């Protein structure tokens, strides 16, 4: 109870839930030569760099444990060693075999797997790092300039950049697979080859489809940003309730205890939900990118478009 009040008061010290979630200055930006460079070394930038390092080192470690061993190990050389590597392997195998391969097919999966999994694990690492109460620990130890902390994926600039990567990947794939003519044909839904009466709607269809080319990655960016930001704001707001209640209720009274206990329980539940959301949003970003790539493939895949649309609709519904 006392702990939750301390945490609650720490959060309240940030003036608003937003102050705890959005980007802020780090202690690194106060270094003179860093400040001369520009508006760099904000908390989200620090978390991005740390996240990138953690991602690369973590996956290097996992890869070394998944790698096929020497022949002297016998059949043991095929066994993945260590929990982290096994966790990575389970996710990779499941996502590859059950999610991506049914959409992209074996050949395209092999081609796009590095990009899709890189973006998935990058987002996942940033999401999970954002759940660590690093800024609260700073407050706890009386530090008011943060070394690190925050959720980088709750920053629209970060998610927009990742969406830019997805956009480039989708368009690269579509031009490579379809060519310029095929790309234009795709954007007109094949109406140029259809009945002449439908040519009138070609400009409208083209405008809508062309807008869709940009709307899809924008939707990816906003979905990830909004989910991470919204979840953390909600969590921060809930945790602030006991301190707010302290302002109106007498500390130690039954009502104050009731508010605190209910808040604590709700915060724990929300944290578990946020943990799930951290995985879900990483998956959704990666999965929808794979779907958008598959939609820009050759015509032989177009009969699968309805099935893909249904899957997209299901994912959107879950999300």
């Amino acid at each position, binding site marked *: 109870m006392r702990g939750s009040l301390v945490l609650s008061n720490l959060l309240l010290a940030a003036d608003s839930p*937003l102050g705890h979630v959005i980007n802020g200055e780090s202690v690194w930006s106060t270094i003179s030569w860093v400040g001369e460079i520009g508006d760099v070394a904000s908390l989200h930038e620090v978390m991005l760099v740390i996240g990138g390092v953690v991602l*690369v080192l973590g996956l290097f470690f996992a890869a070394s444990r998944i790698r096929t061993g020497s022949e002297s190990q016998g059949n043991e050389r095929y066994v993945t060693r260590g929990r982290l590597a096994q966790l990575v392997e389970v996710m990779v195998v499941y996502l590859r075999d059950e999610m991506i391969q049914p959409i992209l097919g074996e050949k395209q999966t092999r081609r796009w797997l*590095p990009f899709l999994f890189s973006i998935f694990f990058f987002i996942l690492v940033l999401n999970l790092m954002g759940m660590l109460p690093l800024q609260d620990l700073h407050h706890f130890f009386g530090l008011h300039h943060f070394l690190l902390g925050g959720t*980088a994926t709750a920053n629209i600039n970060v998610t927009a*950049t990742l969406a830019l990567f997805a956009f480039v990947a989708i368009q690269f794939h579509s031009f490579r697979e379809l060519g310029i003519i095929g790309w234009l044909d795709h954007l007109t839904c094949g109406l140029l080859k259809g009945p002449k009466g439908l040519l009138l709607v070609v400009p409208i269809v083209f405008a809508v489809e062309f807008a869709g080319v940009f709307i899809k990655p924008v939707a990816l960016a906003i979905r990830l940003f909004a989910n991470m930001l919204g979840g953390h704001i909600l969590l921060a707001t809930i945790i602030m309730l006991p301190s707010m209640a302290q302002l109106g209720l007498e500390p130690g009274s039954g009502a104050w205890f009731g508010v605190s206990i209910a808040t604590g329980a709700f915060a724990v539940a929300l944290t578990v939900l946020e943990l799930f959301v951290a995985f879900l949003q990483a998956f959704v970003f990666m999965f929808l990118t794979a779907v958008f790539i598959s939609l820009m493939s050759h015509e032989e895949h177009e009969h699968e478009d309805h099935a893909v649309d249904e899957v997209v609709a299901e994912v959107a519904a879950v999300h």
Partner: protein
Amino acid sequence: MSFAFLLAAADGAAPDPMKLNLWVAGTALLVFGIAFAILYVKVWPVITKGLDDRNDKILGEIKAAEDARARASEALAEYEQSLAKAREQAQQTIAEAKAEAQRLGDEMKASNERELAERMARAKADIESARRAAVADIHANASELAAAVASRILKREINSADQADLVRDALGELDGAGV
């Protein structure tokens, strides 16, 4: 600090979460770009190769097991075929042995019967010749005995014509008696 004051302060200082920051975007671009390049070259090929190797190993083991099972089935079929053939050969051998035994038995039986018949015929012939010899002896002895007896009774010499008549009569009696 009152609650209302706190909220008012929060409202006034509310940061904009949609604020564009090219430094952050650039950092994200750089960090993800570098991370992706490293992972693309150094990590994902190792992981996918490890998974593929294991997959190939499992598929290879399954295929080897299937091949071994097929070979075992083939060997079993061959064994059963050989067994059936051996049984058939054994049955044939037994039948041949039975037939041979039967033939040998029949031959031995026939040989024995033939030998027995020969022996019986020989025995009968021996008996007959012995009987004839005995009868001849009896005839000879009987005629001599009868002549001696008759001489004693008649107190006279019996000539050879008389003796022949007596023998003939005696033999006729003997024949009538079935000797």
